């Protein structure tokens, strides 16, 4: 299918999310949309998929203009979409999910899933998917769920497949598998729109790259364009590729984790016999694909996990079994991975969010009464210090950009003397300018002698910040390796090889994996 977008504009309430975007996708081509978080890629795709109505512009399929009033129209025209957050119903089976909206029925609308099962098996066999049509979706690993989404599109005879940040939840190995599936699909004539903010995989997979910034197409490129060029196109200015960091000067082991086990809500071990140390003045980066126990690990340290056993010593004192408030007050700073649900209260003001975990003692309170002047003064100071861009400190947190929200969290956590600092996904959903700022603040905290744990699923961020890198897989520690360990080795460890196995395998292969190393950029953009 040949797809053309001409002058697509989408505005919300006066704000322009897409500004006359032109895009041409040739049949059998992998066309990448590259842009920062919030650049307008997803909005554009939602317009294309009929979820949003464009304010202006038109869509042409094989040269003919089309109007999509809903996803049904888009699918009928042969467009399929795999959303970043999967559009699957967890309590339904694979077959039910695939059939939904496209059901075969008998008399009186009675469901007949046989045909759907057959199609699933057929597609599954053709692409080597190994998907059981009768499995409940909520029981499937995320990689398989993604395949269910692809099957959903293929069953509907999609000629053009939109993949929205498809690699965000995959291991490097699964990413390679996805890329080979994409190859098979394009060979059979399917066009792909691949949305990503990661330069490396964009360069690996695409035939053509369109870069979007602030809702506008700012350039097109071929995959062999240099990464730095793409990066500056995407960000809108020359990007400083290095943080200019100095080597760590580690001191004593301040945090000692021994034999830590955490049971998840479902009774499965989420963290399995994990032991490690973090020294003063160093950053331990914890790598791993989303959902391999990183969240539970840091939550256990913070006292947020009830079912944790083992030992967590901070400066010799046991943290396990103490409540969250106690742990915070004993000098642990924490940036939770999901800012909007755990880090901030969006309906609270900036000033209130800045005291979220120190509202109940001096100087913010006296007895049971809040001290409003102190709270206001604190807000004024932090807003200036951290360059939090908002109308006033009385603005609601929900009105800020992701970067500014994250600055509030960081400002709050750094506003008391720390013995340990933990940040999970510190730059997720944050613009490049803020990423640099946040990274520098974290490094400054390290250089002040605080032990730091950074959890990130972005390999680039891990390699950028980590003095040492710990890799978790299925809740188990695959090993702790130096900060300059190669991407290949880390990739293998994230897929379940321990450090020695990974070293051996890489040495034996001596062949780079599909995705080549490129100079890393700050945070998750590379």
């Amino acid at each position: 299918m040949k797809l053309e977008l001409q002058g697509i504009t989408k505005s919300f309430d006066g704000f322009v999310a897409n500004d006359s975007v032109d895009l041409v996708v040739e049949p059998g081509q992998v066309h990448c949309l590259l842009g920062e978080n919030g650049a307008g890629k997803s909005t554009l795709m939602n317009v294309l998929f009929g979820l949003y109505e464009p304010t202006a512009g038109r869509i042409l399929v094989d040269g003919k203009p089309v109007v999509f009033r809903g996803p049904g129209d888009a699918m009928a025209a042969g467009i399929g979409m795999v959303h970043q957050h999967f559009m699957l119903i967890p309590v339904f089976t694979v077959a039910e999910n695939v059939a939904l909206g496209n059901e075969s029925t008998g008399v009186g609308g009675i469901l007949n899933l046989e045909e759907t099962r057959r199609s699933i098996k057929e597609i599954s066999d053709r692409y080597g998917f190994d998907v059981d049509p009768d499995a409940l979706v909520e029981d499937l690993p995320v990689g398989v769920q993604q395949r269910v989404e692809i099957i959903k599109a293929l069953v509907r005879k999609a000629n053009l497949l939109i993949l929205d940040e498809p690699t965000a939840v995959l291991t490097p190995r699964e990413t390679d598998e996805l890329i080979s599936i994409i190859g098979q699909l394009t060979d059979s004539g399917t066009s792909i729109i691949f949305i990503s903010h990661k330069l490396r995989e964009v360069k690996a997979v695409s035939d053509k790259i369109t870069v979007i910034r602030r809702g506008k197409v700012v350039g097109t490129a071929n995959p062999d364009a240099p990464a730095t060029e793409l990066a500056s196109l995407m960000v809108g200015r020359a990007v400083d590729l290095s943080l200019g960091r100095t080597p760590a000067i580690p001191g004593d082991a301040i945090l000692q984790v021994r034999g830590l086990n955490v049971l998840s809500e479902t009774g499965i071990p989420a963290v399995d016999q994990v032991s490690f140390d973090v020294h003063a003045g160093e950053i331990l980066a914890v790598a791993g694909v989303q959902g391999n126990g990183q969240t539970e690990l840091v939550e256990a340290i913070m006292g947020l996990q009830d079912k944790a056993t083992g030992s967590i010593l901070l400066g010799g004192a046991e943290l396990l079994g103490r409540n969250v408030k106690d742990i915070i007050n004993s000098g642990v700073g924490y940036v939770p991975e999901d800012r909007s649900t755990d880090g901030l209260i969006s309906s609270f003001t900036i000033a209130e969010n800045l005291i979220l975990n120190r509202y109940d003692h001096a100087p913010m309170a006296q007895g049971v009464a809040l001290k409003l002047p102190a709270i206001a003064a604190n807000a004024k100071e932090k807003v200036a210090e951290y360059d939090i861009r908002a109308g006033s400190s009385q603005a609601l947190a929900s009105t800020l950009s992701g970067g500014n929200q994250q600055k509030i969290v960081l400002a709050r956590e750094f506003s008391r003397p720390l013995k340990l600092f933990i940040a999970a996904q510190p730059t997720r959903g944050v613009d490049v300018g803020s990423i640099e700022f946040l990274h520098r603040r974290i490094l400054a905290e390290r250089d002040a002698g605080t032990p730091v744990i950074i959890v990130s699923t972005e390999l680039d961020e891990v390699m950028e910040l980590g003095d040492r890198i710990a890799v978790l897989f299925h809740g188990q520690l695959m090993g702790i390796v130096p900060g300059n360990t190669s991407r290949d080795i880390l990739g293998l460890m994230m897929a379940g090889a321990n450090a020695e196995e990974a070293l051996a395998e890489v040495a034996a292969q001596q062949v780079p994996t599909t995705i080549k190393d490129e100079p890393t950029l700050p945070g998750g953009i590379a």
Partner: protein
Amino acid sequence: MTSTIKKHNTTLGTRLRGSFFLVSLLAIVLSLIVGGLLIAVTDEETAKAAKYLFAAPGDTLSAAWKAAAGAYAAMFRGAIFNYQAESFTGMIKPITETLTMATPLITAALGVALAFRAGLFNIGAQGQLIIGAVLAGYIGFTLNLPWPLHILLVVLAAALGGALWGGIVGLLKARTGAHEVIVTIMLNYVAVYLLAFLLSTPMMQRPGSNDPVSQIIHDSAKYPLIFGPDFRVHFGLILGLLATWGVWWLLERSTLGFELKAVGANPSASRTAGINTTRVTILAMVLAGALAGMAGASQVSGTEHFVVGGVAASIGFDAITVALLGRSRPLGVLVAALLFGAFRAGGVAMQTQTGTPIDIVLVVQSLIVLFIAAPPLVRSIFGMNARKARAAAADDSKNTTPTPPSGTVTSGSTL
């Protein structure tokens, strides 16, 4: 880019908050119009005139106008100022009746509002009020104490009773995740039957009576009348005003209030910030119950002086609408309670003078709440800028209805 979107929304939101009073006013007017129409079309004289509608349409219209205007005039005379009364006392009696009617509503609605702010949908003010009334009555007629002490004890007992009934909800919510909407609805009924049972036992039943009526409380347990024996306004009103200030202070100036609002807005972030959400949830329901329980004391010690099956009237349910109308802000709740008190007092006068059933008050009250919760509807009815209204729909629904954020009634694993 997100910041641009959001900023835009804020300014819009601020504008809307400014227009909230206008929308509220229009909602009240609209509801009164609907109520008036109902009164008019069901009026006998109107029906008679309507039989010759085509011969003299003016007769029907004037009869309809007379019916509605007459009912509302009677309501005004019953609620605010009786210009037809002979004496000064008679003239200002209505406004004091409004205050009396509003008194239990104030504390009960504060209870609902407080729970709202903590993210809890407290439909249970009725049950909490009943248990409060039971304990107030029991202390009132069993103990013999000097009056200030006795009254103090009555208030404490009522608050304790309500707190207990609310506390069960908080405890179940915090410990098992049981949804408070369901638990409070069920506990309302349990309270009704518990009261019915107690009124049939010697513990409470009036000696020598076969009716489910309790003994009369001692004089020392009765709230003093503020404006003398001619008016029913009692000490409960002062307690209500104090409670309004107290809840305001709690919510806006205290660390507990900070915790309460934090848990209400985002329990997950509160937990991460070290707030003990279990404790806050239980405490919020205990306080909410205590406030509703105080309304029970107001009924027993202030106006009724004994306990019957209908001691709570529909105060606990009216309290929900009052809290919604007052947007869960203490001062707003106070104003809304006074308005509903006026409807009540006026409704009684209307029923006796014009024969219009007082139930019309329920219709008007519920319409007010519905309209206020849907500003775009009010705007479009009054022909205000429709496009802007549509754009603001989502924003409005967030601003006007204090919703428990985690509160999807049926989601969650254990409802």
